[in-house]
């Protein structure tokens, strides 16, 4: 009998204790949950502020995406100075300088599509990866954001350069500033490569001559690229000329891409725009450059003066650019 009561007391004692532990856990969970007050979850795409125009919305969304995906290299302020930048070569772009390398305009200013394309496909040979998993609107807002950074930066520098002593009313000044900035950032003279022509024997000889005369000055007669301590980008960083033998091109290795690079140049670098050359000449150079990419340890045949090209059967397919030794 005594035993039984003892047991009962023990059991209730245990029950109270368990209740206590359970309660303490519940209180703990409550405390933990109460720590999280922020209703905006950083994992979901945050709701953007209402009442803005589409462009502004796009820029704001792009800024958010930029912080998430790009700021590690390009920096929180898009100045190319992210914490991962120090190990990179070439350095990440400083969007305040606003010199976009891959453009399809003749005046060195990018179309919106140029920027989108570069973000989507990246720049081979650099640390800029392609962001294929982002959606088109996301890519577009990223482009809008970085272009707005360049725009604002240019506007501020114009304010200092042109209007620092002006006594215009603020709103008039702002209008003028916007106009002159927009004017400067208007891409013009888009590249028109046309249909890809065939690469004939006569073309090889011409192309080789042009290459040796012009391109070889920087890229070397063997196309391997060169170092020159005086070469600088517009950001003030040292730069070497592209090794054309590796087959790696920042803007892509398709015929059209290389055509565009020759036509539009690479803004911000010593690579000038050869937009005065005629269409056929550029295509000749394109084919010549493409033929320079050869397996390791082999000398490109096209550099030898005896080599001429076989007429291509499919003019648009650069893959059919076959080379043939003259007997």
């Amino acid at each position, binding site marked *: 009998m005594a*035993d039984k009561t003892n047991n009962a007391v023990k059991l209730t004692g245990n029950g109270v204790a368990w209740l206590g532990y359970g309660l303490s856990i519940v209180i703990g969970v409550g405390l933990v949950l109460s720590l999280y007050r922020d209703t905006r979850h950083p994992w979901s795409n945050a709701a953007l502020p209402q009442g803005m125009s589409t462009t502004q919305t796009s820029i704001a969304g792009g800024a958010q995406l930029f912080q998430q995906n790009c700021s*590690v*290299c390009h920096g929180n302020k898009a100045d190319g100075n992210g914490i991962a930048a120090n190990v990179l070569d070439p350095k990440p772009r400083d969007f305040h300088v606003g010199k976009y390398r891959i453009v399809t305009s003749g005046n060195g200013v990018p179309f919106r599509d140029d920027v989108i394309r570069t973000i989507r*496909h990246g720049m081979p040979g650099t640390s800029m990866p*392609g962001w294929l*998993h982002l959606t088109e609107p996301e890519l577009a807002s990223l482009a809008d954001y970085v272009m707005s950074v360049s725009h604002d930066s240019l506007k501020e520098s114009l304010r200092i350069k042109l209007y620092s002593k002006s006594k215009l009313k603020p709103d008039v000044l702002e209008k003028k500033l916007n106009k002159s900035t927009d004017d400067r950032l208007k891409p013009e003279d888009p590249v028109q490569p046309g249909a890809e022509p065939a690469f004939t024997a006569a073309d090889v000889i011409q192309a080789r001559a042009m290459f040796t005369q012009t391109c070889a000055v920087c890229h070397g007669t063997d196309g391997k690229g060169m170092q020159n301590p005086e070469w600088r980008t517009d950001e003030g960083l040292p730069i070497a000329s592209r090794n054309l033998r590796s087959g790696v091109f920042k803007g892509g290795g398709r015929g059209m891409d290389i055509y565009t690079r020759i036509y539009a140049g690479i803004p911000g670098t010593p690579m000038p725009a050869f937009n005065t050359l005629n269409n056929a000449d550029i295509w000749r150079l394109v084919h010549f450059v493409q033929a320079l*990419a*050869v397996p*390791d340890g082999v000398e490109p045949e096209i550099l030898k003066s005896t080599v001429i090209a076989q007429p291509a059967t499919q003019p648009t397919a650069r893959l059919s650019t076959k080379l043939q030794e003259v007997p």
Partner: protein
Amino acid sequence: MHLFSWLPESISSYGREMDSLMWLIYYVVGVWFLLAEGLVFYFIFRFRRKEGVPAAYATGRGLKAASWVIVPALLVLICDFAIDARGEAVWHHIKLEMPTPDVQVRIEARQFAWMFRHAGPDGQFNSPDDVITNGELHVPVGKVVRFELESRDVIHSLWIPNLRLKQDAVPGRMIPGWFKAEKVGKYGIGCSQICGNGHTVMGATLVVQTQSDYDQWLKK
């Protein structure tokens, strides 16, 4: 809901084998796990102290007593060998065999991007028909892809969850490997070895295409 319901869809030819190995291990250790936990909890509730009931005096001395733990341990050993045998076969298939490749890709890792050099129709690298991309790997569906993995600076690790493929890229080495993707689509690629401050953005996309789409893409 259990552990493996989180496994992403397998799209590689050897993904099924690897998944079945994971399931095998899952079941084998699952049984042992439940057995052991079950015993722990059963004993906890069964052998509470009761007034007047002394604990058993069991030292486990002598082979007969010790066999209570040694026999299960030997059973564990048998399970181990089963897992080892199956695992070795799968490992051999994935890492030691090299089927005749249909397509060649050279993958060059650098801080913090993946560069893919698709060899093109001639199957040779550094030739005019190479297609070089940053961050997008294009392969035809159902074809054996041989890759050569290289790194320019630090150790990276090619990680394609859907392909069940992981391989470190070590500077100074060229590490070959292969895979065969069996479903068209876009899949994520990541770097799974810490490679510096930008490790967190070192992603890429695997694009599995039909042969005709792939050829089209090569020519474009």
